[in-house]
């Protein structure tokens, strides 16, 4: 039942043999062994499995791997460049937005897509942006602060440049 598919993940093209009922999440974790993306609810409620597909945040548990072909997929592993954390990741560390860390990859990926589109958001917009993510540890406060911190970091970087 397996068919040959080609997926582009974090800039690399992978040729895979997978069954049509495998989700993008399964293939990322099981075939590509990129286990930064997490599985939690499996039905699109919690956001832990969020990856970027053509710069849009999606729940990878609800994407068929066969339908992710031809798309540019970025997982949490694709954010850091040459060992240097992305400013969003740095902000999450600085503001104590990571406790158990399980929701974090999903939160960070959604934040990346969100800030790319809306670099200067209000707090209300930040809250709406992460509405698809559940966190059992932090109570969300530090995550929202971290996102605001990431906004400030990028402002400072722009002013220096």
């Amino acid at each position, binding site marked *: *039942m397996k*068919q040959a598919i080609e997926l582009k993940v974090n800039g690399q093209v992978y040729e895979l043999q997978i*069954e*049509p*009922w*495998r*989700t993008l999440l*399964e293939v990322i974790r099981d075939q590509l062994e990129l286990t930064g993306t997490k*599985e939690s609810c*499996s*039905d*699109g*409620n919690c*956001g832990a499995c*969020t990856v970027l*597909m053509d710069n*849009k*945040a*999606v*729940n990878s*548990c*609800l*994407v*068929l791997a*066969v*339908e992710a072909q031809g798309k540019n997929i970025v997982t949490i592993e694709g954010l850091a460049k040459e060992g240097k954390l992305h400013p969003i990741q740095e902000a999450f560390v600085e503001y104590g937005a990571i406790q158990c860390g399980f929701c974090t990859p999903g939160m960070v990926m*959604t934040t990346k*897509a*969100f800030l790319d589109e809306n670099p200067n958001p209000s707090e209300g917009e930040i809250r*709406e*942006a992460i*509405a*698809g*993510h559940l966190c059992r540890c932090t109570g969300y406060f530090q995550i929202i602060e971290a996102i605001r911190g990431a906004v400030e970091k990028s402002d400072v970087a722009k002013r220096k440049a």
Partner: protein
Amino acid sequence: MFRRLPKFEYLVPKTIAEACTMLAKYNGQAKVIAGGTNLLPQMKWRQITPGFIIGLTNIAGLDTIEYSESEGLKLGALTKIRAIEQSSIIRGKFPLLAQAASLLGSVEIRNVATVGGNLCNASPSANTASPLIVLGTKAKIVSDTREKVIELEEFFKGSNETVLGSSEILTELQVPNMPLGSAGAYIKLGIRSTPVDRAIVGVAVLITLNPKSKACEDAKIALGAVAPTPMRAKKAENSLIGRELDDRVIEEAAAIASQEARPITDVSASEEYRRGMVKVLTRRAIKQSLEQMK
């Protein structure tokens, strides 16, 4: 639920006609997939286990947003909810539709979910249904032998049931221009303040005022999640037409809508609460519509 999908064969039609032929060939064993944000969870919960999944995303031309002054909006059934939310055409010309789209699930869901999928899943609380109904939308349905256009209001048969035949596919929504001097609103009440939850009650309203007298020339009120299908509150609508919409008239209409609703008690909310909230949301939606016309 199972974290893994049940096994199926994935078919890739090149045209809608081919997709319809496949549906006919596999006769009840096949389901089309648009965004998959309802289909895949239903499959994981083993509510349905189709042996064949027919992918629609590679068929060209099903996800376009086309607007003209003469014909209004033509919305492809595969248009993503997020595209509707962010479309400057829809935000400008049909703001309550963009508003309703923004209240569907999370960003991650909206990036994948489609308007056709939302309507064909036919949840009684479907976010896009009641706004499209008050806008007077028509639905284009295609089979392998013919196509037809019906009123969207006639599209829903029951809870999670549409009039689509087993080899028919919804391809397009046709939304006429909003009348001159009209404005509308969509309000959704969920369990939590985040719109990610399914609506307990949804109300869409479209009010047209006479430009000279400011009396109500037309009113459309559609309720979601308070009947097996999205429903028009026609008695409430009639109570507004021809009258000046002061607080007393609005309150009366809201009360009538509340009586017309046929909610049930379920795990999300009681019948009494839903009925009470129909009144509140109808009042608010009418007032929000009038605010836009000041």
